[in-house]
């Protein structure tokens, strides 16, 4: 029987979108994009015969993927990593260097050098950014900047 479309109907997810999300994120709605979970749940409640088959199929692949071997850290690895951590005397080297430079009255000179460094960095930036995922660097700050870089040449997006 025909009935007018309610607000809930209007906010209902399409079956195609539901299937696409199951195809990408699997059969557990908790792993779906948070912004779409609620409307997905509504569709699942309203049309269980349609959605249950989609979810069951996705869950089968989830379970298969879960069979991949897991790996727990060995005590030796934990120990090696903990031993390599900074000791209580560790201090930021940049701060120490800065205090030393300031003590010698070289702050003004460093400011000039820094400006020149920025200019060089700007000039080199396109080259650096054109080398996506260039791998780890010696400088952890640069490492963090890698977050902004483009995907690797190893695979397509």
């Amino acid at each position, binding site marked *: 029987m025909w009935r007018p479309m309610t607000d809930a109907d209007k906010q209902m997810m399409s079956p195609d979108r539901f299937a*696409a*999300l199951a*195809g*990408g*994120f*699997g059969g557990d709605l908790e*792993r779906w*994009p*948070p912004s779409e979970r609620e409307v997905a749940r509504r569709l699942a409640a309203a049309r269980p015969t349609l959605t249950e088959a989609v979810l069951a199929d*996705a869950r*089968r*692949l*989830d*379970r*298969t*993927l879960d*069979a*991949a*071997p*897991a*790996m*727990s*850290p*060995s005590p030796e*690895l*934990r120990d*090696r*990593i*903990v031993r*390599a*951590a*900074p*000791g*209580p*005397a*560790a*201090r*930021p*080297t*940049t701060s120490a260097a800065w205090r030393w430079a300031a003590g010698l009255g070289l702050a003004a000179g460093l400011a000039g050098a820094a400006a020149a460094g920025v200019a060089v960095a700007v000039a080199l930036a396109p080259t650096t950014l054109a080398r996506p*995922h260039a*791998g*780890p660097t010696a400088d*952890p*700050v640069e*490492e*963090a900047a*890698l*977050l*902004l*870089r*483009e*995907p*690797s040449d*190893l*695979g*397509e*997006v």
Partner: protein
Amino acid sequence: MGADLDDELVVRAGRGDPAAIRALVSHKLPKVLGLARRMLGDPGDAEDVAQETFLRAWRFAPRWRPGHARFDTWLHRVALNLCYDRLRRRRRMTHELPDQADPGPGPDRDLQARDVGRRVDAALRMLPPRQREAIVLCHYQEMTNIEAASIMAVSVEALESLLSRARRALRTDLADVAADD
């Protein structure tokens, strides 16, 4: 572990606080190791990557500025970069030794079918690295689409596309395994 608690631990670890160091290792090492294991498929390489990731974290910790970035995101990105470094090295070696057999999973399906885990591991390794990265972050590391997209520096739409293609390929590759489930 929440982002705020991570920040506090990283700052304390940077000062050499043993409790914070142990807490960070305890919370983050299994995730980093799992990530490397899934990306590389080799336990030895995964251990090396996990160790190197933490060495970089320890070097960075004294300079960590709370509130600027999520430590978890940073740690995953560093680990993934190290993984890509190794994958690149492997690829170069494969190119330099063209007469050698493909070091990837063999086609002996009958043998591998006895071990579902090995089959899944092999199927993951057959994926293009970016698709594998998406599956590892979302399925195995249980990250949200926003977190994974941030780590991969792609849009959430691009992430969804990578995931869909990855799962489609895995479904095909593991069809006989899934059917037995």
